[in-house]
């Protein structure tokens, strides 16, 4: 039942009841017709004997046999009458006509009222009593004691009817009924089929359309030629289909858009819009394949921004992001169209310079280096000097895979960063290189170096240029010594140390060394003045001043022999913390110095706000002093201002004795660097230079 189609159900629904009803109706009317015919025959028979009986009365009474024969014959003349028999009171037949089938027993039996006496397939017999009729008589003449006599039965009449006619009529009726039923059913079936088809055709079309839709043919439509609910369904389906098609196409286009966007995002850096690392590697692979095929050369620059973390820490990541964007624009403006610029992550950029030899690549790298070095990033009221450490590697057909290129470039960049930032280093990809320590290892490297004592404290002695030396002045610094590695300076370490919160420990180590040295020098009655550089983190921490106070107290030292020096950048970007630190350490009699002085624009305003004892001049001021009038004028101006405020000036990293002289001429108070004395381990220097018995 449940797996029937709609058409079958409709057919069943219409045909089954109507067939049943029509069969029942036809059967009912046919059989009632047959019954009626039988009833009619019975009635006719009864009527015949009922009439025949009284008119036979006189004949029987009078014994008029001829008259009775006449009656019997007249009766037989009636249609359907087969035989008529009149018997007397004793059951003796006195008149007969026709072919008699009734048995003698039946003829002898007494019948009290008109009734059917016998019936067979072919005939039916009726009988009725002939009664003596009673006349109304005058009661007055009734005999005394006369019995109220019942009408006397004086004989019987029997009539036989032929059933052939009846049977024929019944058969005819049955045939007619069957034919009517058959024709009616055929008509009904035809009508039902037509109706079912008419109804199911649009439904089937809808079904087909739905199938098409579900199999992805969204352009499937149905013809809307039906009326009524089906018409509404068809129109509704078409509307729905159109809507779905529309939505589908919109969605398709959106998906394509999104896919394109995803594809773009997969290949590009969201922040800067430059290619990302993955796409860069793909391009690099392609370029490498091209080089291996053609034999040309191309170069790759690995660029790492200097002081990016400083911007991020000071002004938040929004500033860092903005810096990255600006640098991206800056680099893009300087590169050719065919060059590929990518941001590998963080502050690392890469440039593929196609068809570019080592020499040309070096020039480009230098160009970019000076570009970034002179670039100033301005965020709110703060100005940052940025720089970039660039590794250059040239690729030729000897290079086997891009890993070599990446490793070489990374190593070169790292070397540039370690060698003091804002410079270019070079590494050939085809040559095996020493494995570069991964940046992410800095934390463990520094930590283990601190624990194992592999962080050596070095002394950078200062030479007084203007007045005879009154004791020893030394700046403490540190150097990371690892087996099989070249030593790493504190300047190179500081970024990583700051990032992993290890800078305060290094600072404490330096301070401890200074306290010990000062204590020992006092016990030997030697004059020693220590300059200890402090990191940004130490400056911003209140515990640093407390640590210094505790150290001085512990070693029973006067703070006057200790100068705490920090970068002018720190003061610029963390002014309030730096001021707080200065106010904390001044009561301890410690002195304060500014390093990298003159590199920023606000240098002079700092002198008044914190009143330092020393300023350490920025390397950019003293590096190209030789023959540079502008630099010497600037140094002279600084000297005038500092001298006026009783501040001593220090020039560092002086390697040329000529410059030393020039500095002396300019009035610079102290100098350090190879031209003064090479840096050496602090202990060695302390023993040798300070504690040596006079």
């Amino acid at each position, binding site marked *: 039942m449940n797996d029937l189609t709609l058409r079958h159900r409709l057919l069943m629904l219409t045909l089954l009841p109507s067939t049943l009803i029509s069969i029942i109706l036809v059967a009912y009317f046919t059989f009632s017709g047959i019954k009626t015919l039988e009833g009619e025959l019975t009635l006719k028979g009864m009527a015949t004997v009922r009439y025949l009986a009284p008119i036979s009365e*006189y004949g029987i*009474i009078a014994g008029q046999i001829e008259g009775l024969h006449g009656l019997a014959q007249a009766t037989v003349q009636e249609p359907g009458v087969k035989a008529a028999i009149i018997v007397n009171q004793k059951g003796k037949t006195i008149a007969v006509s026709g072919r008699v089938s009734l048995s003698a027993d039946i003829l002898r039996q007494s019948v009290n009222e008109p009734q059917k006496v016998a019936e067979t397939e072919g005939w039916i017999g009726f009988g009725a009593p002939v009664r003596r*009729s009673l006349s109304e*008589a005058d*009661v007055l*003449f*009734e*005999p*005394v004691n006369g019995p109220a006599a019942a009408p006397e039965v004086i004989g019987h009449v029997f009539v036989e009817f032929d059933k052939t006619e009846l049977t024929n009529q019944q058969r005819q009726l049955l045939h007619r009924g069957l034919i009517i039923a058959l024709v009616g059913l055929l008509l009904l079936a035809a009508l039902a089929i037509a109706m079912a088809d008419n109804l199911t055709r649009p439904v089937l079309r809808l079904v087909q359309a739905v199938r098409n839709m579900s199999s992805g043919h969204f352009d499937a439509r149905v013809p809307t030629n039906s009326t009524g609910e089906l018409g509404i369904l068809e129109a509704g389906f078409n509307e729905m289909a159109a809507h779905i098609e529309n939505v589908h196409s919109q969605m398709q286009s959106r998906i394509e858009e999104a896919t394109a966007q995803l594809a773009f995002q997969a290949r590009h850096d969201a922040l800067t819009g430059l290619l990302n690392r993955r796409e860069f590697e793909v391009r690099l692979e392609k370029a490498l394949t091209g080089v291996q095929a053609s034999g040309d050369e191309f170069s790759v620059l690995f660029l790492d921004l200097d002081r990016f973390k400083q911007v991020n820490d000071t002004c938040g990541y929004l500033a860092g992001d903005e810096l990255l964007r600006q640098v991206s624009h800056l680099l893009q403006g300087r590169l050719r169209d065919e060059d590929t610029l990518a941001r590998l992550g963080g502050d690392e950029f890469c440039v593929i310079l196609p068809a570019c030899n080592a020499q040309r690549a070096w020039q480009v790298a230098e160009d970019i280096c000076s570009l970034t070095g002179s670039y100033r990033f301005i965020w709110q009221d703060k100005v940052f000097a940025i720089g970039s450490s660039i590794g250059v590697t040239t690729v030729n057909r000897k290079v086997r895979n891009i890993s070599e290129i990446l490793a070489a470039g990374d190593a070169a960049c790292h070397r540039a960063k370690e060698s003091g930032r804002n410079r270019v280093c070079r590494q050939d990809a085809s040559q095996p290189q020493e494995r570069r320590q991964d940046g992410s290892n800095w934390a463990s490297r520094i930590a283990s170096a601190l624990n194992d004592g592999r962080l050596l404290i070095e002394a950078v002695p200062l030479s007084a240029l203007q007045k005879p030396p009154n004791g020893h002045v030394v700046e403490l610094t540190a150097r990371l010594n690892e087996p099989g590695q070249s030593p790493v300076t504190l300047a190179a370490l500081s970024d990583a140390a700051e990032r992993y919160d290890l800078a305060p420990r290094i600072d404490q180590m330096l301070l401890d060394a200074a306290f010990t040295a000062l204590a020992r020098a006092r016990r030997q009655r030697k004059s020693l003045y220590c300059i200890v550089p402090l990191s940004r983190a130490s400056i911003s921490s209140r515990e640093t001043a407390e640590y210094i106070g505790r150290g001085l107290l512990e070693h029973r030292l006067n703070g006057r022999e200790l100068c705490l020096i920090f970068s002018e950048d720190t003061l610029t970007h963390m002014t309030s913390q730096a001021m707080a630190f200065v106010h904390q350490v001044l009561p301890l009699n410690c002195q304060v110095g500014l390093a990298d002085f003159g590199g920023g624009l606000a240098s002079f305003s700092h002198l008044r706000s914190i009143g330092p004892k020393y300023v350490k001049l920025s390397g950019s001021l003293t590096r190209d002093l030789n023959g540079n009038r502008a630099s010497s004028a600037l140094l002279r101006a600084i000297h005038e201002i500092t001298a006026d405020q009783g501040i001593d000036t220090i020039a560092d990293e002086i390697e040329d004795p000529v410059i030393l002289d020039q500095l002396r001429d300019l009035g610079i108070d102290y100098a350090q660097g190879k031209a003064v004395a090479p840096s050496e381990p602090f202990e060695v220097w302390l023993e040798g230079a300070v504690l040596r018995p006079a």
Partner: protein
Amino acid sequence: MRAVRQLLLFLTVCLSSQVWGGTVALVLSDSGSAYAEFSSALSEALLGTNWRVISTTTGDNMPPVGDSPNLTVTVGSEALRRTLARGETSLIIATLLPRQSYDKLIAEHRRPTGRITAIYLDQPPARQAAFLRHLLPGNKRVGMLVSNETRSLATPYRQAFNAAGMTLDSEDTDTGDTLLPAINALLPRVGALLAIPDGTIYQRSNIKPILISAFRQQRPVIAYSVAFVNAGAMAALHTTASQIAQQTAELITSNPSSLPPPSPPTQFSIAINRTVAQALNLNPPDEAVLRRAMIADRENR
């Protein structure tokens, strides 16, 4: 003449009522219309006399003791039978019954003569003869069926018809089986069939075959009751219940101490079935004309 007779009758009634008087107990066969008619007619006729009807019963119940009537009038055969059966001691006038029944009951219950009398329904033979003569003037032969009950009457009838210038032919029949052969034998010989009250022949179940047989042979049946005429007889000479009551009242008021012998009705009526007459192509005279002719006949003799 008639007026004189009526005056005489009236005077007799008035005189006797003054001399005689008494109570009458009326016994009806049942409460049918003829008996009721008789009862009311009798009561009416006795008004103004010294006779009064003290009870009217159907004879089943005994009349109140100690107040026995001077005279008992039975109406119908059944009333007489019951009255005789319960041993009524007073004088009895039996009315409204055929002679045959009276004779039969009297034979069963012996009563001294003078203590009981009757007024029959049966018409006297002379009157019948006169009636037939006027009714069917051209007919001289009249047939009559007789049984054991009525065979004795055949002779008076024959004499009366002879006197009237007609011939009476008769045929005997005692059973139903012989009836139709008898009638079929008789009818061809006569011009009309005269039926007289006979319980053996004229039963309810026989009347129709008799009438049909007569009709088939185109012979009119002259009967004795209105019911017979309605059933198909052409005419009947009869006396109504009122007429009998009238006669009874006369008898009561005349001389009740010694009753006369049974007598036929003094008055009569005539009934004619015109439809039957037409069917037989007969055109009998009007009832009133017949009646006048018969009365004139009697006075002339």
